[in-house]
């Protein structure tokens, strides 16, 4: 069932193509600034950066309709921004502010935006794969043709939740698209130390009676093309698709990662295929952008991210009364001792 996509085709118009480049730049800049804020201790907890993987979120989410859904794991900033989240509430969430996209209660790993059908970042590895399957189940139950995109890492496919959920999705022909963003390293464990089979399409396809594809996720256009195919299949009621997106993260697993599992040479080599550079060069070749419009784009994004930081820094912290809000829909009765 495994198929390898190689030749990029032009599948979106100039306007969308440029928008995608802008989104990738925005994600990169947003996270570079987030890393700086983390180091200056304005961001707490864990912070997992998406640098290097941007094309995967942008090319796939870019093919969705407004009434489609997406859900992802804890490395979630890129997916949120690709879905159109305003960088202001995104940055405010990182700083734990009440104006954040989860009102300061979720943090980096738990971004949400209901209005855009973004069902969150989820931090227990593999735990959200059944949730995605449930969203797809609901789409079919309600007789809509919406689809649900679900992203997870190569570490997650070893969880039981993955196998349980994909089995039911395959059996019930649910409109779900499962993306394993294979960045080759699950925290510090290389794929060959975590999976008996290195071709992950073997693990996600035939066992669950769904087509499986491998795609070079440094190429935003290839990601989009394969996603388009999967979406059409899901909308037609033909069921789910499994996509192995080969990618690479340029930063550590989280902010405190000495990265002893790879060499500097490995990293430098990977960076030569930076998805942003590849896309930029292709658009330059097509004559869809030029150096001056690129310069202007970068400047605008810098300003946009600095405005987001300013907004986040000037936003209020949640108040002590917020500890007890939004626990239940019914009036919440804390079960305190006294």
């Amino acid at each position: 069932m495994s198929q390898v996509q190689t030749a990029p085709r032009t599948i979106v118009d100039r306007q969308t193509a440029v928008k995608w480049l802008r989104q990738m730049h925005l994600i990169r800049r947003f996270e570079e600034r987030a890393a700086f804020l983390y180091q200056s201790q304005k961001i707490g907890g864990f912070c997992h950066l998406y640098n290097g993987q941007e094309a995967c979120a942008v090319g796939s989410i870019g093919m969705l309709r407004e009434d489609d859904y997406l859900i992802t794991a804890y490395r979630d900033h890129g997916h949120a921004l690709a879905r159109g989240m305003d960088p202001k509430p995104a940055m405010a969430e990182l700083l734990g502010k009440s104006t954040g996209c989860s009102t300061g209660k979720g943090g980096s790993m738990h971004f949400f935006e209901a209005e855009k059908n973004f069902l969150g970042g989820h931090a227990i590895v593999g735990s959200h794969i059944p949730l995605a399957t449930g969203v797809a189940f609901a789409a079919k139950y309600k007789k809509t043709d919406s689809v649900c995109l679900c992203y997870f890492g190569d570490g997650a496919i070893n969880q039981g939740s993955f196998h349980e959920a994909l089995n039911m999705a395959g059996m019930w022909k649910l409109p779900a698209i499962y993306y394993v963003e294979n960045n080759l390293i699950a925290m510090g464990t290389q794929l060959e130390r975590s999976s008996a089979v290195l071709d992950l399409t073997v693990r996600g396809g035939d066992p669950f009676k769904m087509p499986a594809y491998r795609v070079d996720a440094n190429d935003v256009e290839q990601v989009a093309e394969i996603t388009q195919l999967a979406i059409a299949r899901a909308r037609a009621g033909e069921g789910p698709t499994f996509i192995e997106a080969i990618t690479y993260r340029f930063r550590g697993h989280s902010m405190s990662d000495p990265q002893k599992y790879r060499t500097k040479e490995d990293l430098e080599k990977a960076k030569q295929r930076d998805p942003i550079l590849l896309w930029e060069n292709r658009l330059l070749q097509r004559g869809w952008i030029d150096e001056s419009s690129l310069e202007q784009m970068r400047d605008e994004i810098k300003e946009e991210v600095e405005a987001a930081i300013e907004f986040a820094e000037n936003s209020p912290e949640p108040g002590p009364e917020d500890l007890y809000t939004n626990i239940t829909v019914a009036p919440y009765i804390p079960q305190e001792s006294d």
Partner: protein
Amino acid sequence: MPILAYRDALNQAMAEEMERDDNVYLMGEEVAEYNGAYKVSQGLWERFGSRRVIDTPISEEGFAGIGIGSAMVGLRPIIEFMTFSFSLVAIDQILNNAANMRYMSGGQFSVPIVFRGSSGMAGCLAATHSHRLEAIYSHFPGLTVVMPATAADAKGLLKSSIRSDDPVIFIEHENLYGEKGEVPDGDVLTPIGKANVVREGSDVTLLTYSRSLINTLAAAEQLAGEGVSAEVIDLRTLRPLDLDTILTSVVKTHRCVIIEENWPYCGIGAGVADRIYQKVFDELDAPIRRVTVKDAPIPYNRNLEASMLPTVDRIVAKINDVLYRNA
């Protein structure tokens, strides 16, 4: 008023709610074509079809998560665990996803879901199939924990739970499925979070829930013959606890015994006793006593298992303790 078995009352509640709201569906192992391992879903598949009554593979974590995901986007799933002992396999979904989703998303996503199924020490099922997990689930903010003891409450509380916008852990008792009682016809909703004073009395307050209500009432009846007036309260909802009803009674009787089919350490009674002590310590004329399951894994052997349970004799002894009648 019609007399129904506890299992049929549950069935009626689900049928009525599914009839009322197309977003309500039932999913679990053997709930459809097999009519339920304990026949709670008898006839529902035939009546509502495969779209709304759905058999799953043996994948508790998977279908619990599917239920939660579908609830996040507007459905109202009833997820049946064949027994709550099997919910341990799905506990990440329940505790991390169902309980936290609303909070973590800043109120953007709620999870209107009911997890229901049998529970308890049903006889010779040994350690893995006899779990009582209510204390664990009651520990977690975000969950509502309901445990009906009677057929009427089985129906009324299940209907309220299905209409709740929050995740509800609805724990039935395997040995109660055949218990019969009067059940009001039609749309009667028993409120969540309200205990029920089942028997009024003035000398001692007996707090209990689920199957233990039967032995507690028997103990109260036995002691009535000796001139002891016991007030029996069925907690019904364990989270949030109906503290007002409990405290009103304890302030009246000044004595309290808590009876549960649960281990003693960190059990429901431990939490309830703590709350009584913190609020009305000065009203108590004796320390609160507890009747629990003995602190060992549940053995297969019938006699050993029976020796652990809160029997009428054990309950009477503790009531006599708090009344200082043993001296």
